[in-house]
């Protein structure tokens, strides 16, 4: 069956990485074509290197035949509806499968759902599905979870000369709690570095009252590949802004795969991703975070034990390729 994947697969950025990993997972089951949003990507060497091993062609929408058979899959594609691409896909006779990934709707998404343009909507979690219940009333849905190729995030033992705490997320100020730098610094660790990706002017503005010392390294989005960034951390400490609800937690699972122990807040979906005290830590309030981080900081054998358990859990339970392959075959069959 033909599968037209709308977007730009890459090794950087959540949705792009997901597409790259799906190509690896599904290239033997589907005849995959990548449909790019801009002509400039046709000359992208990295994209070419990524697609060539799987014989996946990349085209522009205008270059596709007027009548097609198969499925179009768009993942977290910001302009997919507002650009008119969704309508053109339907006009060509393709089944349209849409996966939003976020906890908010994109421009034109609600109208497309209402109009019947979307044949199936995919959700990464029941939590996310619940958020969109009203918008997707009457639209068939499927819960795929999130696939991360575990081979891209091999476990690595870590013991930085200076203990390094950090986090990886979008550079959206709302992703950060209002007390973020205080939160890290009040942990009272003796010698520590903080590495944060992604940082931006908007995020920095939120903390203009704070003086970030030399122990802080604040990186813009995609400054480093996620895997390399995660390898540089001893601990993934991820307090989240009070206005945000995580639909899944891609960075947390990537961290787990690499062996970077996640310490995350309660009230999201993390209890579905890890077992508290075994493959990471879920904390309600600051004093719990502090106790947990200080124990992991002081006890390297304990940290290494949890680190191995994180990776094993993520590999076996969250990123099992065969299970995901079956799920996706079902999600994309009509």
């Amino acid at each position, binding site marked *: 069956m033909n599968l037209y994947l709308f977007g730009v697969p890459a090794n950087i950025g959540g949705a792009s990485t997901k597409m790259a990993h799906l190509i690896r997972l599904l290239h033997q089951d589907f005849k995959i074509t990548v449909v790019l949003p801009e002509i400039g990507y046709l000359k992208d060497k990295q994209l070419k290197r990524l697609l060539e091993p799987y014989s996946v062609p990349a085209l522009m929408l205008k270059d596709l035949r007027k009548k097609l058979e198969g499925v179009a899959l768009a993942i977290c594609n910001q302009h997919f509806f507002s650009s008119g691409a969704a309508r053109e896909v339907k006009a060509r006779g393709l089944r349209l499968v849409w996966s939003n990934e976020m906890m908010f709707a994109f421009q034109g998404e609600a109208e497309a759902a209402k109009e019947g343009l979307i044949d199936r909507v995919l959700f990464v979690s029941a939590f996310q599905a619940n958020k969109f219940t009203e918008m997707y009333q009457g639209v068939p849905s499927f819960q795929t979870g999130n696939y991360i190729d575990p081979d891209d995030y091999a476990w690595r033992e870590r013991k930085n000369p200076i203990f390094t705490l950090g986090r990886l997320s979008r550079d959206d100020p709302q992703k950060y709690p209002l007390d973020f730098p*205080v939160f890290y610094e*009040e942990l009272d660790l003796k010698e520590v570095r903080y590495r944060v990706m992604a940082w931006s002017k908007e995020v920095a503005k939120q903390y203009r009252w704070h003086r970030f010392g030399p122990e802080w390294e604040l990186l813009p989005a995609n400054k480093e590949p996620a895997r390399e960034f995660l390898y540089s951390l001893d601990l993934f400490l991820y307090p989240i802004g009070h206005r945000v609800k995580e639909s899944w937690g891609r960075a947390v699972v990537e961290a787990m795969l690499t062996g970077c122990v996640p310490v995350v807040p309660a*009230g999201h979906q993390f209890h579905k991703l890890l077992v508290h005290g075994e493959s990471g830590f879920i904390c309600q309030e*600051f004093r719990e975070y502090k106790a947990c981080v200080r124990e992991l900081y002081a006890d390297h054998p304990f940290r290494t034990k949890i680190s191995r358990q994180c990776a094993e859990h993520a590999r076996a339970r969250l990123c099992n390729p065969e299970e995901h392959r079956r799920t996706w075959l079902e999600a994309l069959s009509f």
Partner: protein
Amino acid sequence: MIEHCVRTARRAGVFKEFHVLCDRPLEDCECYDAYKLEKTHGLFKLHYLKVGMSRLSFDFFVWFDADSVFVCNPIDLLGPMGKSPIHVPLEANVSALEEDCMWKGTPLARLRELWRQEGVANQLYLSQSAFWIIHHDAIETVYDLAMGFWNKANHSGLTVDVSAALGYAMQMLCADPEAHLLVNHPDLWASDDEGDFRDSLPDGTAWRWRHPLRPDAVEIRPSIIHLPKSKELLAASRMPSDG
């Protein structure tokens, strides 16, 4: 009262500037016309913060109510802030209170519910608005948080005063509330809500402070004491100024 307060501060050795909202010029103070301030719910403190303090070029501002006295010069005034951009002394943990009660005219159960709903994840603490310290660059953030909370409460039919709104901002910005507990800084500030100094002003000796909602009392010896129950005594007091 504020003149008396400033005199006690000078006598204790405080040499910093005092900026005062008042209706007439006051000796030894930077004075601002306060004729038209709306005092409902105490929100004028936040408005003053935004339109007044934000224009002054200091790194930190300390607010205290006029009915306060200094019994000595605070040794480490900014120490309690830790890494936080604000310090409001947190007085009583009300997370585990089983029986509902009114606090400054607000049902406590609803206040706690609203704090939780608006993102306070830690233990919940009551605090006042009679004394607080803020970093200049956090003024806008604190104002927006506090007023946003006040408006949210108001829209949901809950009338809260400035202390609940300021307490919300404090608890959203401090990370570790335990570092800001009044009892952890017993030499800085306390409010005599029980009226221990109704008959005679404090002289700097230690006293047993108790929050009205808590049974336990602790011995403290704060440098700055808020005296809401001693207003007559303060008004009658005529401490001669130094010099």
